[in-house]
């Protein structure tokens, strides 16, 4: 069973979102997602200043198997991305919720956070979608 921290919000595409004290949000992919993707070998993260609507592809993660898009869970502007992943994409596998974070966004509509799943709902979603 994959790890689902209580303090995060989740999407059905297996992204997680963490609201920071300064109002920004940090985005990554869940433990379930990194497990399904396999070992990551490349992460293409956006430049600061890029703007995304909710659901826009904002990061590309490539594993030993395939390339996958990561979608912006809420709309906003990228303020930074995780530069350490350029040389160590495996951090996403090793620490999907901490060292393996992908991008930080400045939300354009913080209320969109409320539309995301909480940890219990996402854990249930994983159970329900386990084919």
């Amino acid at each position, binding site marked *: 069973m994959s790890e689902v921290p209580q303090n995060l919000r989740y999407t059905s595409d297996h992204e997680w979102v963490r609201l920071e004290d300064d109002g920004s949000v940090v985005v990554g992919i869940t433990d379930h997602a990194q497990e399904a993707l*396999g*070992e990551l*070998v*490349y992460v*293409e993260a956006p430049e600061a200043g890029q703007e995304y609507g909710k659901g826009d592809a904002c990061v*590309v993660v*490539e594993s*030993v*198997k*395939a*390339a996958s898009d990561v979608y912006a869970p809420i709309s906003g502007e990228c303020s930074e991305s995780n530069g350490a992943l*350029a040389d160590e994409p495996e951090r996403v596998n090793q620490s999907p919720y901490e060292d393996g974070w992908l991008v930080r966004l400045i939300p354009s509509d913080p209320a969109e956070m409320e539309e995301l799943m909480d940890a219990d709902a996402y854990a249930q979603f994983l159970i329900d979608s386990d084919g």
Partner: protein
Amino acid sequence: MVDFGGWDMPLHYGSQIDEHHAVRSDTGIFDVSHMTVVDVAGPDASAYLRRLLANDVAKLAAPGKGLYGCMLNDSGGIVDDLITYRLTDGAYRVVVNAATRAADLAWMNDVATAFDASVTERPDAIMLAIQGPRAVELAVPLLPPSLRQEVAALEPFGCAEADGIFVARTGYTGEDGFEIILGEDAGLRLWDAAVEAGAAPCGLGARDTLRLEAGLCLYGQDMDTTKSPLVSGLGWTVAWEPSDRDFVGRGALEGEKKAGIPVKWVGLILDDRGIMRHGQRVVTSAGDGIVTSGGFSPTIQRSIALARVPGDAAGVCQVEIRNALRDARIVRPTFVRNGEILVEQDSD
């Protein structure tokens, strides 16, 4: 686990990348029992295989040797790539791919109707590949005493058989090692003994990145029934001499050769960031080509690919990765062999 040609097979046993490195630096073991083993015997066995295959089994001057090559259709397209071993004077063992099993067997039986030769699949055979710079010293002591001396002395593509255990000094990784065909019980015992002796269990994922680095073709990706060996980097496996050997597809290949081969099969190394994948467009000064296999090279730590490009293409090129053109270079399609990186890593 993934479905591969109807077989449930592990992509990895934990870490595909660790498994890859184990084979380059030490020893890995692969369960490749999905491969289809076919025995060919009878008075016409040799004549039949000389008709069936584009390479010439007459090169196997004595039993105990193997030969890589292609089985073609009448149009010169590749039905499959395979290794043929000569077991005795009138008996051969052919190892073909799993995904092509049904088509291969149908074609082999079809061509066999004109010959006094039997074509017998060995569906119960277990096949293990033990590969890596330490594979030989690890594997030899695990084999029956009756085989050890002979197996330790095998040349590349040499083979030996005793007590129902067949061993060939072949592989699909670019490293030294053996491919071993044996019964189920003996296979399970050998697997456990090899792992106990330090061989890392390796899945399909590492098998693919290892063969990609070694520049070895994968059927279905780098070639198929619409591609001849001449456009798949496999022209060297076509035995044109003797000129009167009428192998299946010969006429088509001769026509193709006479008309001029417009494309060639090359390696690509990506200088930009990103990962090249099967099917991506290659832009060269001589026109467009296509990536046939691509991925991340754990040994070189960047993306490499195999590609079919215009015959005049050389030097720098670009690969279209997810709607962006990325800089790459055309290189010889052998990136890593016996643990050594063979391509220039830096462009300038």
